[in-house]
Structures are given as C-alpha cells and as structure tokens.
C-alpha cells in the first residue's frame, strides 16, 4: 500500500480516504464504467444487455433525427447560458456595488427562488403560459394579440423556463467575483481618464472573468442535460438529449443506445467546456 518517494500512504491518510474511495468508487465510477461498457453492447429484450464491442450505438447518432436533437440541445443550452449572462451580469453588478446591508439582502432575494424547488419554478411557467392563462391575458390586454395564442409547448417557452430556472446559478458566481472586486481599481482607471464604459470593459469585466466562466459552466451543463423543462414546457419539437436518453432507458428499453447517447452528451460537454475555458479564460485574463 505505502508508496515511496516521500508521498506515501500513511495509515492515517488511508483511513481518511477509504470511505470516499468506497462510496465514489462503487456508486459513481463503477456505474459510469458500466455505462461505457453498455454503450458498446447490444440491447436484448426488456433491458437485457449483451456486452461486446458494438459501435453501432454510436453510429446511430449520425441519423439526422438524432443529430438534430443533439444540435438543438446545444443551441438551447448556449442560448440559455448567454441570456443568463446578459441578464445576470447587470443584476450581479448592481448588487455587488451596494452597501453591505443592501448587498446581503439583495443577494438573498435572488437565492430564495433557487432554494425553492426546481420543479415548482418550472411549473410556475406552466401556469403562466398555459391555455388562456396570465400571459395570454396580458398579451390581449396590451393589444398585441386578439385572442389566446399558443405559448406553451414551444421552443421559446422552453428557453423561458430554462433562463428562469438557471439565472441564480449565473448571478451567484458573478456576484462573488464582483463583490471581492477592489473598487479603487475602478477609481484609478477613472482618475487616469478612462470613461465609465472604458473602465467597465477594460477593468471591471476582465477582472470578473472567473465569475463569468464559473457561472457559464454552472448554467451550461445542467441546461444541456435538462429534461424536466422540455418535458413540462416543450413539445415534440423541443425534445432534447435529456429526453432522448430518458426515453431510451425508461420507454424504449434500449439501454445500449441510451448509454451511447449519455457518453456522447458527456464528451461533447467536456470538449465544449475545455474549449470555452481555454478560449475565454486565458484571452481575457491576459488582457486584464
């Protein structure tokens, strides 16, 4: 057990690490490896599985039907992330530069919807958008529409539900990075003749980049794996990868294809995040 080179595993260390090794090894890593194995397997009857080296499950994603779902998933996830960033940044910025008392209360107000249930947050939009509900009443009252129009079960409804659900995930890390921000840097920039616009883009924004990156990842990943929002607010035209995976596991009982889809989703997300962090992360940080 003990390793040499002065980085040995003392009994104390082994004691501290054995519970986590057991739990995450058995209930996180082993299941993932099982899915990897299944993704190369062949589906039998009723969820049965024949292992092997069958790459057909991966080849199936090339079907235009599935490619379209993958593409749609990424578009919705990217749009959700962008909208959360565009809306969340001014909010986090505003809160971060208030007095201490106001800051605490305002950020708590952002957190309360987050601490209530995710399902409830999505359900609220079902109530608003459904049938001749509040949203349709408002549209007619404002004279934008003459009668009730179909709002729910559309891609826009899904996007709305996603932005609403994930906005707090964006605001919190942004707030954390802006709150620790040294205001004197802003003042120095303005003393040196930069206007507020310049100061923001050249000083404040680059320094808040860690928050932007953290927030984007915190929104993008669950958004790309989402299946509740499209289930409740979307229709057949808004099926996302999450729905497809769920169908393969629970309805179609094709665990091999479902596993391959999960692997594809995980790998695509991993690549997207690495690309994003390299690209956005280093560029902007060096400028700052």
């Amino acid at each position: 057990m003990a390793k040499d080179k002065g980085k040995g595993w003392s009994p104390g260390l082994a004691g501290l690490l054995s519970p986590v090794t057991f739990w995450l090894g058995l209930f996180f890593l082993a299941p993932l490896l099982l899915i990897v194995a299944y993704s190369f397997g062949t589906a039998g009857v009723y969820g049965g599985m024949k292992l092997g080296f069958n790459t057909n499950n991966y080849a199936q994603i090339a079907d235009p039907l599935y490619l379209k779902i993958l593409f749609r998933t990424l578009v919705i996830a990217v749009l959700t992330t962008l909208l959360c960033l565009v809306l969340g940044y001014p909010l986090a910025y505003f809160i971060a530069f208030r007095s201490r008392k106001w800051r605490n209360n305002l950020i708590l107000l952002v957190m309360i919807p987050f601490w209530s249930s995710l399902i409830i947050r999505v359900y609220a939009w079902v109530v608003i958008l459904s049938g001749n509900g509040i949203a349709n009443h408002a549209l007619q009252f404002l004279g934008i529409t003459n009668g009730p129009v179909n709002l729910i079960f559309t891609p826009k409804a899904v996007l709305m539900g996603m932005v609403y659900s994930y906005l707090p995930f964006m605001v919190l890390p942004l707030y954390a990075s802006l709150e620790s921000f040294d205001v004197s840097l802003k003042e120095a920039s303005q003393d040196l003749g930069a206007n507020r616009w310049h100061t923001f883009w050249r000083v404040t924004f680059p320094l808040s980049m860690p928050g932007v990156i953290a927030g984007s990842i915190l929104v993008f990943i669950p958004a790309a794996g989402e299946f509740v929002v499209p289930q409740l607010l979307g229709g057949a035209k808004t099926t996302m990868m999450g729905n497809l995976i769920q169908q393969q596991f629970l309805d179609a009982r094709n665990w091999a294809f479902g596993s391959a889809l999960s692997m594809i989703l995980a790998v695509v997300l991993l690549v997207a995040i690495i690309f994003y962090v390299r690209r956005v992360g280093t560029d902007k940080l060096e400028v700052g």
Partner: protein
Amino acid sequence: MSIKSSSISRSLGRVPDRALFALVGLLYLFLYAPIAVLMFFSFNSAKSTEFWGGFSTRWYSALLMDQDILHAFYRSLIVGVVSTIIATAIGTLAALALARYRFRGKSFYDSTIYADTVMPEIVVGISLLAFFVAVHVPLGLTTIIIAHVAFNIPFVTIVVRSRVVGLDRSLEEAAQDLGAGPISTFLRVTLPLIFPAVIAGALLAFTLSFDDFVITFFVAGVGSNTLPLEIYSMVKLGVSPVVNALSTVIIIAVMVVVFVGSRIFMRKERA
C-alpha cells in the same frame, strides 16, 4: 486615502444609473412574478388558472388531506437527513486528506470529485439505475439515499477543504505538544475550528438532496416518490391547484428560514 474613498463610494453607491436601476427592477420582477402568480391562484376557488373564481382556502385543506404529498414530504426529509449525515462525514474526512496530505493518486481524487460535480445529472441518474439493476439491488428509499450521498460528497469536500487549507496548524501542534493524541486533537481542536464549514457543507447537501429531481427520478422505483417527484407526477399533465397551494407553502417556508437564518448570521458577524 484610497481605502477611505473606496469605502465611501461603496457605502453611498454610485449615482444609480437610471437604466441599470430599471433593468434590475425588471429582473426582480421576473424572478418573483411567477411565484406571485402561483400564490395568487392558490387562493382561487376555481380549479383553473385561467380565471378568478373567488377567494378560497379549499386547496390548502385539500393539501393537508393529501396523504401522497405528506408521505412524499416525510420521504424527502428522511432522505435529506440521512444522506446529509453520511455525505458530510465522508466528505469532511476526504477534505482533511486532500488539504493536508500530498500523496500519489491525489490528482485522481481531485478529478473524480470535480467530475462528480460537473457530470450531467441525467448521466449520473441512468448510470446508477443501470448499476442497481445489474447488481440486483431493488430500487427504493435505500437506492435514493445511496445516490444522494454520492452526489453530495464532492460539495461537502469542496466547502470543507477550503476551510482546512486556511487553517492555522499551530493550534493543533500545540495540542499535540501538550500531550493530546491524534483523535482527541481532531475532536477537541480541529473539528471545532472547521465546524462552520462542516455545517455550511451539510446545509448545502441537505438543500441539494431535498430538491433533487433528476437523479432521484431514475433511482426511486415505484412507490417511493420524494416531494419533487410527487410534484412532478402531479403537474406532468398540466395545472394542479393543490400544487399551487403546496408551492406557496414551500416558498413561504424558504423565505422564513432565509430571513431568520440571515438575522442570526448577521448578528453573529456583528458580535
């Protein structure tokens, strides 16, 4: 000088940009209007949310009589408490190891913990489902708790670790110099010092467990709905007035807890 001027500009706030002010107002409206709509319709005597049929508390009475919701609530509490205790214990030990020791394979632990936090929930959910089926563990409360511990450990570890890293080791060394053994040093010196972080990690774990839908959805099996699963099954087919009442209760409860919690926290900070 610069410290003074910066603290002044922060406490007074900059002259608020009208546009920013208006935008922030709209964003808070965006955050709270949907919740207000739910609360409003929870008092609607009509079943529909398309019109107002008069004030009524009938959906609250229906909520109290709903055995399925009450049982789901108890299940969520049990799962939340049990999984939080286990995850906090395991996560805290792991945090101590990762913050204090340099060892071979450390980066493997780091990346596993990181991967666990960023892995899409649906992938974690279906992989656990496949695993439990493969090893013939029947789905139910036990599998839910196992899954919740697995996704909560990393969050506890991350929160506690940052506290352990910032800890002054001289106190523990002093205790050991004075003859305390490793276990009594841990219990009487280290643990009290990291306790705020342990509590913070536990609270985070409980919140995540209580609200988890996706992973639970796959590992729950039949007849062990937690509260989010129960709500989902009720709203899957559209508007449910009982859920409007339940949502109102949950949101008010969260607001009370947050309000009381922040008062206590702020008083402590001031003291």
